[in-house]
């Protein structure tokens, strides 16, 4: 954590009490941090607290935290103040926990801290709940103690989402227990009536019925409450949803059974009602658990929030083991960083001066000095969170169509139930129709699969910004790859050196290196490290090159015309190239010295990508803005058959359009900034996201780690996800089509209906939980080549 004190002060308010942190409620230490948030001045105990609180408000996470905004403004923050002897309390997100042993170690360390009252570490959520005596200890010291054993911890507000999750989980378990236990017990009371064949005395039967009624009552009132609440909400929206038939079936079945019990005549189906409730709740609980598991990565991203206290241009030092609080550029130091929070890649990425650092990555070895370029809500991490949230709110066309179909089907079910009840003169037929044919499975099928697919891809370094991208992604027949920055790293390396004058290669290289040493231009990195000569008065002429004095002679490096102006004649014949930005010349007052051809290093994963795509039957195209020869050479290297060079953005658009006219489904992979028009034109688009502002990338899928292999992951995962969704829809529709006439004809009793309906939901749930994984072989081959791609940086 980085402490930047924004002012002095004692940290005491006018009542003389210690001021509490707006975020975590801890006493604010001596040098306090004050900031205006939500239209009022707030005080914070540390940068982490302030960052979390501020970014919730400013980071566009409203959707995630809307519940908190609606509750009374932070009643808990003031609470410790009212009780002078209150204990300090905090919840920490633990980083780096891998196994139960880690949890044990952290717990032991925490419990040995002075003044610690309670320290519980939850393995599932990787969270520590702490309370301690504020007089003896403070949060920064506790976090330092956790760091000392090699883990990291970030404070966050326990009142917020975690509490909501716990409530949700507890009440779901509670409902499940009531329904399950109730169903078991009611079944026991119903059992004698089923097997006695009339031997059961009327009095005994009545006792059983009353006992069943008594136990079904809480099942209906407590356990089934979500169905009734959902039905009421649907009624309020004047829309028929999935909860309406369930609620009607449950209430109708209970009312008819209760009436039969009171009147002492007719059928009772308390056992069917409670069994149905239990099975439906079990399906919902499984759905909850699956969603929580799938969104764990997104939750981690959202819980880590970049510091908003920093401003672009500020210089900060990041100690080893610290998280980078904002996006920026390394100014001094050499280290490596773990960017897995953003890219899903846990391998350390080397960082040297000039390299970009992203907020949320962890510095490993040495202290780094960085200049902040983007802070708070502008950072890559915040943008990724926003995009991932947007994707969660979107559905592919197929799923929307299924939702509409589900609504129509529900209306049909209600009408059929009413008609059947009137025709047969028996309410039980209506209950059977309602329960058996509710298209619940239809509504359950797609969301889990989509959530799982998006979360899985995010962990692989492919951020889905629109869930609707899954549908075209599944049908992709052609992939058009951009060259610069996509198949290549976009970093220049020296390909060829031709001495033109009296100096040999070594001297020319040393001269070039020396001149470029003063520059930050991407070209300057191409000459690598090595001996340099002394240059005087280096002068950078933007768009042209660099001029300096070496041994009292003027020497220039840069564009052809820039050097020609110094020499006074065009460069000598044989190696006179076409004008191209990739050629750099070196000359002095008397003659041309050398011509350098620079080229872009090919990403090592590019060949594996092309091969993997071909294996999947996808046609690969290369569309390059460079000369055709440059593109063709790369295409030969990577075994790409179709290549087009010298293309303007408009040409690329036309190229994609031509493919689409022949019925192809085209995916475009580009760098996302220069390719915006063609990315919009393609059926589905990928953008290399690392380093760029993810929010500005107009692409369906952003490759956050610039890992090309993620394209194949996305393709595979989408194909699998859409197949699962289609299977689920097929099953749900087939079941409903088969069971609706049977139930309307009165062939299906309430208990059979309950069993069939719940079984259909659970089958769909289980199918949706099947693995979306891709073969391990491809993953291994791309991740091993990835470390090399970073060695160019």
């Amino acid at each position, binding site marked *: 954590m980085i402490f930047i004190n924004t002012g002095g002060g004692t940290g005491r308010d006018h009542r003389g009490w210690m001021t509490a942190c707006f975020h975590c409620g801890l006493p604010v230490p001596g040098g306090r941090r004050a900031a205006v948030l939500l239209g009022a001045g707030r005080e914070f105990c540390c940068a982490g607290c302030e960052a979390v609180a501020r970014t919730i408000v400013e980071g566009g996470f409203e959707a995630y935290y809307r519940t908190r905004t609606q509750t009374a403004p932070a009643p808990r923050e003031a609470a410790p103040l009212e009780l002078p002897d209150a204990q300090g309390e905090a919840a920490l997100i633990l980083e780096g926990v891998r196994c*139960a*042993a880690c*949890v*044990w*170690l952290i717990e*032991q*360390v925490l419990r040995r801290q002075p003044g610690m009252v309670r320290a519980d*570490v*939850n*393995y*599932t*959520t990787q969270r520590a709940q702490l309370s301690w005596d504020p007089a003896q200890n403070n949060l920064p010291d506790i976090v330092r103690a956790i760091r000392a*054993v090699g883990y990291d911890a970030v404070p966050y507000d326990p009142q917020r989402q975690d509490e909501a999750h*716990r409530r949700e*989980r*507890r009440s779901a*378990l*509670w409902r499940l*227990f*009531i329904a399950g*236990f*109730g169903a078991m*017990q009611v079944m*026991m*009371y119903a059992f004698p009536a089923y097997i006695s064949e009339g031997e059961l*005395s009327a009095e*005994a039967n009545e*006792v*059983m019925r009353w*006992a069943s009624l*008594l*136990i079904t009552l*809480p099942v209906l009132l407590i356990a089934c409450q979500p169905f009734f609440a959902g039905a009421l909400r649907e009624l309020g929206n004047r829309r028929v949803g999935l909860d309406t038939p369930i609620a009607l079936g449950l209430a109708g079945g209970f009312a008819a059974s209760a009436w039969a019990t009171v009147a002492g005549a007719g059928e009772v189906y308390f056992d069917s009602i409670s069994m149905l409730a239990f099975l439906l709740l079990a399906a919902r609980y499984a759905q909850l658990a699956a969603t929580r598991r799938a969104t764990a990565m997104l939750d981690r991203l959202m819980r880590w929030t970049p510091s908003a206290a920093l401003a672009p241009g500020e210089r900060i030092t990041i100690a080893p083991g610290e998280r980078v609080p904002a996006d920026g550029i390394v100014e001094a130091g050499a280290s490596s960083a773990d960017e897995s929070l953003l890219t899903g890649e846990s391998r350390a990425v080397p960082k040297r001066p000039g390299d970009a650092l992203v907020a949320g990555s962890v510095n490993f070895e040495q202290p780094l000095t960085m200049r902040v370029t983007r802070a708070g809500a502008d950072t890559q991490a915040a943008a990724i969170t926003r995009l991932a949230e947007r994707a969660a709110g979107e559905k592919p066309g197929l799923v929307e169509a299924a939702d509409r179909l589900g609504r129509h089907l529900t209306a049909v079910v209600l009408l059929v139930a009413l008609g059947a009840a009137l025709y047969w003169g028996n309410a039980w037929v209506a209950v059977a129709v309602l329960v058996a044919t509710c298209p619940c499975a239809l509504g359950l099928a797609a969301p889990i699969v989509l959530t799982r697919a998006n979360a899985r891809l995010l962990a692989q370094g492919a951020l889905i910004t629109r869930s609707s991208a899954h549908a075209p992604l599944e049908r992709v027949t052609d992939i058009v790859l951009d060259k610069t920055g996509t198949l290549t790293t976009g970093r220049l390396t020296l390909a060829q050196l031709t001495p033109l004058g009296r100096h040999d290669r070594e001297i020319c290289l040393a001269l070039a290196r020396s001149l470029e040493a003063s520059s930050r231009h991407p070209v300057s990195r191409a000459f690598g490290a090595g001996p340099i000569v002394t240059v005087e008065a280096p002068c950078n002429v933007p768009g042209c090159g660099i001029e300096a004095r070496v041994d009292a002679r003027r020497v220039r490096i840069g564009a052809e015309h820039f050097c020609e102006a110094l020499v006074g004649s065009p460069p000598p014949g044989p190696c006179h190239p076409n004008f191209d930005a990739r050629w750099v010349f070196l000359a002095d007052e008397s003659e041309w010295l050398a011509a350098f051809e620079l080229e872009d290093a090919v990403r090592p994963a590019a060949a594996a990508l092309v091969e993997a795509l071909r294996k999947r039957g996808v046609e690969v195209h290369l569309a390059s803005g460079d000369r055709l020869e440059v593109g063709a050479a790369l295409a030969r290297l990577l075994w790409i058959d179709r290549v087009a060079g010298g293309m303007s953005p408009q040409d690329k658009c036309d190229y994609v359009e031509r493919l689409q006219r022949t019925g192809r489904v085209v995916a475009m992979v580009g760098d996302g900034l220069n390719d915006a028009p063609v990315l919009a034109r393609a059926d589905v688009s990928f953008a290399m996201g690392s380093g760029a502002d993810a929010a500005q990338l107009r692409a369906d899928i952003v490759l956050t780690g610039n890992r090309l292999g993620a394209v194949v992951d996305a393709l595979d995962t989408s194909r699998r996800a859409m197949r699962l969704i289609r299977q689920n829809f097929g099953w749900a529709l087939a079941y409903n089509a088969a069971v609706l006439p049977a139930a309307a004809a009165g062939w299906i009793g309430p208990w059979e209906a309950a069993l069939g309906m719940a079984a259909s939901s659970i089958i769909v749930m289980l199918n949706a939980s099947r693995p979306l994984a891709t073969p391990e072989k491809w993953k291994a081959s791309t991740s091993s080549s990835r470390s090399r791609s970073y060695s160019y940086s």
Partner: protein
Amino acid sequence: MESLYLLVPLSVVLVFLSGWLFWRSLESGQFDDLERPAQELLADDDRPGQP
């Protein structure tokens, strides 16, 4: 058969009792983490000199 008049109400009472017990254990956080307590048994934390 007369025993039914005692046993059935008794079973209803037992159901509600066990419901109450489950509620208590749920609210005390017993089901919040289903993995860690099982592992805790294996971890030694009573030896001197452990971190």
